[in-house]
C-alpha cells in the first residue's frame, strides 16, 4: 500500500484545522479589541 496518500491526508487535515482555528481566534481578538478601542474613542469624544 502506498503510504503517501495517508501521510498527505493526515498532514493536510491537521495543518488546515490548526490554521482555521488560528485565523478565527486572531480575527475574533482583533475585532473585540478594536470594538473596545472604538468605544473608548467615542467616550473620550463626548
Amino acid at each position, binding site marked *: 500500500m502506498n503510504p503517501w496518500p495517508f501521510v498527505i491526508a493526515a498532514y493536510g487535515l491537521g495543518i488546515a484545522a490548526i490554521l482555521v482555528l488560528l485565523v478565527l481566534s*486572531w480575527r475574533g481578538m482583533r475585532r473585540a479589541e478594536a470594538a473596545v478601542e472604538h468605544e473608548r474613542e467615542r467616550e473620550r469624544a463626548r
Partner: protein
Amino acid sequence: MHRFANPARFLRIARPATGWTLWPGLVLSLAGFIGGLFFVPADYLQGDSFRILYLHAPAAWLGMAGWSGLAIAGIATLVWRHPLAALAGRAVAPVGALFAAICLASGSIWGRPTWGTWWEWDGRLTSMLVLFFLYLAYIALADAERARGPDSEGRIAAIFGLVGAVNLPIIHYSVIWWNTLHQGRSISIVEGRSSIDPSMLWPLGLTFVGLTLLFVAITLMRMRADIARIKLAMRLQRRAEAAR
C-alpha cells in the same frame, strides 16, 4: 496569586506574548513538519507512513496538556476564586479539543496502512476518544454557565474540569495496564529514554515545541478576545446607566 487577577496587568504580558509565541510557533512547526516529511529516513518496518508521528504525537500531548490546563484553571477557580481562571478555561477548551481531534484523525489515518484498520476499540483509542467528548461537554457547559451571567463564576465547569482529569492517567497508562493494539510509549522524559532512533528524533522536538507555542498563542488570543468583550459589555452598561 492575585498578581495576575487584574486584567490590565495580565494584558500587559499577554499582548507581547501573543506575538512571541505565534511566530516562533509557526516557524518551528513548519520546520519540524518539513524535516519529518522529507529529511528523515523512512522506518525499517512501517516505511513512510511513520512520518505521521511528527503530527500525531505532539497533538496527543497537547490534547492531554490542554485538559491539565482545564484542571488547574478549575482549582484556581474553586480555591482562589481567581477571576481569570474561568476565562482561561473557556479559552483553552476549544484548542485542546482541536488537538485531541487531530490526534484521533491522524492516528486513524496512520492505523489504516500500518495496522490494517481505521479504528479499533482498544484502551488507548477509546480513552482518547473519551477525552475528545469530555472537551465537547466542557465547552457546552462553560458556554451555558457563562450565558447565565457573570456571577456564576464558572464553578460548574471548574468541577467538571477536575473530574475529567481522571481520564488523563487512564490515557497515559492504558498501553501498560491493558493489552492494546496501540504500541507503548517511545519517549520517557523522566527516564531519559527514547526508542526512536536519534536520526529521526530532531523534527519531533521541533514540532513538540512549535505546536505547543501555537497552542499558547491561540489560547492567549482567545483570552484577549474574551477580556475585550467583557470590557466592552461593561462600558456599554456603564454608559447606559449614566444616560438614565
